[in-house]
């Protein structure tokens, strides 16, 4: 049972990690908690579902459709709910947080109108492929999910540290004004960030559908809350922190159910952040102390 639970935990954790990567990217650059990220993830999932079930599209096309639509929603989110606030004086971070909350309420209810309430079956033949290693069954999907999350993490880390645009992005994150003076088109960098983060949400959406076979219009919220908790204990803006935090949360939830009480499963994420914040307020991988980054 231990091995099976380990696999369950890693699968869940990898998905958490991908969602958290989206949060951490936006927070790292904008210092904004994008409360609509969970709902964009949910929408991506539904677009993937429609591509698979209604259009009979192969899986890669479903991924592409989910990525494109999530990215488009990220673009709109930035244009409609974030950019107008950036240029206004007197707009605190609270204001942009509330505005993304507004978008999340909107999206959840639009999804309800479009797709209906309740669970939808997300069936793909790919999700049925399994290996039997002794008494343990491993699904190919589970391996793919872990691989995708690792690739996304590594790619993101490389991009941020090596590429020119990645450096521009970090400059933007450091200071909007300075980056602007240095010739970085900060507006474009910010849009790119939100779009990339949202696209990753789309990927995570399809992966959730494949891993658990079901999606519904409420899943953005619970996934979003978990993602928030992860970036806190992983360290805000840290790519590795999001990955490590995601895995840690996935595993601790699973083992809490396996060896403890399943009633507290949803609370673990927050117990973890409370403990982490009291011991190491900047999070596991957080670099700068919390105060300096306001």
């Amino acid at each position, binding site marked *: 049972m231990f091995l099976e639970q380990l696999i369950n935990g890693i699968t869940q954790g990898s998905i958490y990690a991908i969602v958290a990567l989206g949060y951490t990217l936006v927070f790292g650059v904008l210092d904004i908690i994008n409360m609509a990220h969970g709902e964009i993830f949910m929408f991506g999932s539904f677009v993937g579902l429609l591509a698979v079930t209604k259009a009979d599209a192969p899986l890669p096309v479903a991924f592409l459709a989910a990525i494109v639509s999530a990215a488009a929603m990220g673009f709109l989110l930035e244009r409609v709910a974030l950019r107008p606030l950036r240029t206004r004086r007197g707009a605190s971070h609270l204001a942009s947080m509330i505005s993304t909350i507004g978008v999340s309420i909107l999206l959840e209810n639009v999804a309800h109108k479009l797709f209906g309430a309740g669970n939808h079956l997300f*069936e793909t033949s790919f999700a049925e492929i399994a290996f039997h290693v002794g008494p343990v069954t491993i699904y190919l999907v589970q391996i793919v999910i872990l691989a995708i999350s690792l690739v996304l993490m590594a790619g993101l880390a490389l991009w941020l540290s090596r590429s020119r645009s990645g450096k521009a992005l970090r400059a933007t994150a450091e200071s909007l004004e300075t980056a602007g003076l240095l010739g970085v088109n900060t507006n474009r960098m910010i849009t790119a960030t939100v779009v990339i983060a949202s696209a990753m949400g789309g990927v995570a959406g399809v992966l*959730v559908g494949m891993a658990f076979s079901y999606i519904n219009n409420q899943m953005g919220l619970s996934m979003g809350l978990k993602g928030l908790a992860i970036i806190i204990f992983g360290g805000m803006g840290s790519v590795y922190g999001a990955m490590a935090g995601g895995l840690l949360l996935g595993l601790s939830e699973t083992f809490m159910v396996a060896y403890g009480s399943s*009633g507290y499963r949803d609370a673990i994420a927050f117990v973890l952040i409370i403990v982490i914040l009291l011991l190491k307020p900047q999070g596991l991988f957080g670099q700068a102390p919390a105060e300096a980054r306001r």
Partner: protein
Amino acid sequence: MKKRDLRLLSVLTALLFALLFMGAQKAKPAAKPKSEPVHAKIGVVSIITGQGAAYGEAITNGIKMARDEVNAKGEVVVDLKIEDSTGKAEQALSAAQKLINSEKVVAIIGPTLSTEMKVVGPEANASGVPIMGTSNTAAGITQIGKFVFRNSMPETQAIPASIGAAVKKYKLKKVALLYGNDDVFTKSGFDTMKAVTEKAGLKILTIEEFQKGQADYKAQLTKIASLKPDAVFCSALYNEGGVILSQARKMGIKVPFVGGNGFNSPKVIDIAKDAADGLIVATPWFGERNDPKVKAFVSKYEKAYGKKPDQFAAQAYDAYYIMTNAIKAAGKADRAKLRDTLAATKNFQGVLGKFSFDAERDVVMAPNVLIVKGGKFTIFH
């Protein structure tokens, strides 16, 4: 704000006068009371938006269908007022207050959740408005007061039936329990489940919990699988239940699943497909019953809404008939009189079968025990 309130008030009073006037006009040719329809305004509190809207949708669909049928007959002509509760107790209370005091309805059908009923029920009772839940299955609902009714079978009646039948047939010895611990419906279903299991002398291998909105039950199911139970007793609503079944079968848990009333829905089969086979439920609602009334209801519903009716739709449909029959018996839209005729409902023959209220205005009905076989609910022998 004030101006609008005033305007609202004047519109409302105008409406009220108009109604009074209409009533007065209607009262004149009252010489032939038999052919004269009884006019009434019935309120519905249901979940239109938010979590749980799937249940509210089925309920309002069932009610609207019944209204169209009854209105067409012309004996009781009802003006239906549907208000959204969003699944929150406060919103449900505001909605009910609006129906009771602004719309002046003669009775209320709903609200959807037991938590909402526990807030709305006392208020309706204090205001002397009959209120009938069509989907509240927790314990202690009709005990709120003498104006509170329900026609949904409580889990305390449904679960002993399904567990009893399963134990007898499969000679169960050791079982695993699984339930949603953050929902009144599933929690109080579980309490019954646990009591019945203990009384039947079965060994409980483990009790596992899940929370609303989770997509992944693999951790709980892996644990259950490793303990090799003879059956899994699961208190869940169909939405989560279908997913649980599907994931369980995928993990190699092939034993029967036993659920209560909440598990009974064609949606379970839509969601879980073949994995639903072996699910045992106890419920008054059986959509495949060989009864012209049920068949007509199912085909008409399917035509109108593009899906099969579930127990929520069926219960709401019957509730509407029970309500309008009582209004007919009362002869006029009078709250106190309606309460008495409603409480006197005996042997009503609806799509759920024969229905009566007991002395505490709770359900008297015999549940069917059903099992899913080949993607269909069938009677369990």
